[in-house]
């Protein structure tokens, strides 16, 4: 009798523990994040300060803003590697136009061109159904070339840096919070709402989850895919405004390599590259983790390349944990 009772009891505990561990595993990325913060705070007294946190989040805001758009593209079932050179293009354009036609015109015109490039991506991938990896890779190269042709290879600068309200986007503060952070988090909030609560968002998830079924249900795959590229171009353009305003100038290759950092952040956040699942909130956590790794290791005095090794491990472990928890097994079962 007592045997049975203890058995039931231990069984109950086990299942409770299991529940918790499952919850933990599913929120693996959050757990990793908190763990990170704790470890770094223990080892570096500089780490755990509002100042430092604000710096890190502000630095993450550029990658983060782009990652919002790229997350939407990836949920829709595609990739966007062109954001790096698009960021260069937009920054160069807005900075260069600033002194020529003023900040309003510069921002407006730059947005038009950004959306135009987004539309080209979207047309090739959405309507012509070409592979997104290769198309955006080609665009990566082409846009970089166009940027260089536009400037003739020269750096661009804003002359009167003190006297322009353009400085607000990269350097300003509102309610004591840096404006880039506000832009980043504000866009994220809107994007998460759009994805989770609107018909548009639902359609993106459907198209990414099963394009054929979406079309068979009367959704327009081509139009949806097209629109996701407009969005990633838009968020990239926003990031360019932050970047241009922060630096008040730009080199032609300023965005080089951002595409991979952005993708790493999106992946860390657990958005599946197969499409149909993902979340902006988790992407933000992914991007912040990358930023905190960089900042934390630097504060601890490691050379900058140490962060690459840590990033390697963190990417694989985070995604592994995610997969293992839905699979219910740590390792795959096939031989």
């Amino acid at each position, binding site marked *: 009798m007592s045997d049975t009772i203890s058995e039931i009891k231990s069984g109950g505990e086990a299942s409770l523990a299991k529940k918790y561990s499952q919850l933990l595993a599913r929120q693996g990325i959050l757990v990793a994040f908190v763990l990170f913060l704790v470890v770094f705070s223990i080892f570096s007294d500089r780490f755990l300060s509002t100042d430092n946190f604000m710096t890190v989040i502000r630095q993450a805001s550029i990658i983060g803003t782009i990652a919002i758009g790229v997350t939407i593209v990836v949920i829709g079932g595609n990739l966007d590697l062109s954001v790096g050179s698009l960021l260069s293009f937009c920054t160069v354009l807005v900075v260069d136009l600033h002194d020529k036609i003023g900040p309003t015109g510069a921002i407006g015109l730059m947005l038009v061109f950004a959306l135009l490039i987004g539309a080209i991506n979207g047309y090739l991938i959405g309507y012509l159904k070409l592979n997104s990896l290769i198309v955006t890779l080609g665009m990566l190269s082409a846009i970089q070339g166009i940027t260089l042709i536009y400037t003739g290879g020269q750096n661009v600068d804003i002359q009167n840096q003190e006297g322009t309200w353009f400085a607000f986007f990269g350097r300003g503060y509102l309610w004591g919070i840096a404006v880039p952070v506000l832009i980043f988090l504000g866009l994220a909030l809107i994007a998460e709402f759009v994805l989770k609560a609107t018909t548009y968002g639902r359609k993106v998830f459907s198209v990414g989850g099963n394009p054929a079924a979406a079309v068979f249900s009367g959704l327009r795959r081509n139009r949806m895919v097209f629109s996701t590229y407009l969005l990633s171009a838009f968020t990239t353009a926003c990031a360019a405004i932050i970047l241009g305003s922060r630096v008040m100038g730009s080199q032609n290759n300023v965005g080089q390599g951002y595409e991979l950092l952005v993708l790493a952040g999106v992946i860390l956040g657990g958005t599946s590259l197969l499409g149909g699942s993902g979340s902006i909130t988790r992407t933000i956590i992914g991007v912040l983790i990358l930023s905190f790794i960089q900042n934390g290791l630097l504060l601890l005095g490691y050379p900058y390349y140490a962060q690459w090794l840590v*990033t390697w491990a963190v990417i694989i472990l985070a995604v592994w944990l995610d997969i293992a928890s839905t699979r219910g097994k740590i390792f795959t079962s096939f031989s």
Partner: protein
Amino acid sequence: MATLAHKAKSLVIEQPIWLFVAACIVVFSLSTEHFLDIGNFKNILVQTSTIGLIALGLTFIMINGNIDLSVGAVLALAACLAVDLQSSIGIPLAVTVGLLSGVVLGALNGLVVWKTGVDAFIVTLGAMIGVRGLVFVYTEEQSFYATDFAYADFGTSSIAGIPTLALLFVVLAALMHWILSRSVHGRNTYAVGGNRQAAIDAGIRVGPHMVINFMIGGFFAALAGVTLSTQMGAATPNLGRDFELWAITAIVLGGTKLTGGAGSIVGTLGGVIAIGILRNGMNLLQVPSFYVLVIMGTILIAVLFIDRQVNRNAEQELNV
């Protein structure tokens, strides 16, 4: 004769990239005098051999349904090891260590892909960042150079008038073609990539099979690092950045599907040579470097588009 024509036709349909190569040759030989020289073709072969060697191994991995984004970083590590170690353990051993590093990292990537079930794109994106970190940890940002010119001499040497590196590439390409199309391992590579579950159900040991292909990929990336370092007599930590993208591009242009299960070494060869000829021809024509970027990007997309047009079956297609 008829079968030859037939073969040529099916080659064009299955691998329109060769048509593109032919077009490039015609255009460049009409527009620049040095293009048709034998010497220039030797150059093109040597120059393409680096991306080409990477692409040989990567073709296996991609037909297998995986991808390896870390090949550029692996190339750098192997090159640095092979050059740095030769003063202490001699050239043959140093080269062996360099090649081994590629095989080991390939095995690591493969094991992680197999055991964790994380997509190869993600695993090797991580490795692409991390292995570059390893390179910097090892080199502490410094470049190494080979004190012994014999090492660099190998890179510029010729056998029977053909550059050794070009010869090596061609011979290995033939070998890899043979393995892929004739051997059981090669055929299983298609099976695993074409339908992984079917391969598992048929009793093919898919995990170890994939690990072997990752090791082959790592080996070839490392070999490319070694041959490149013989051309430089040196190795730098930044070596091979973006090479993975060019190799993947060449492979896809050659008709290998990113989803796996289809592709060929002959196609990859076409892709690699197409890129090599384009670069060489544009150098000869002195196309300004900014325009080269635009042209390369545009051509990449155009070839993809043409390939789709050639291979599509309009009647079977749905208006989706």
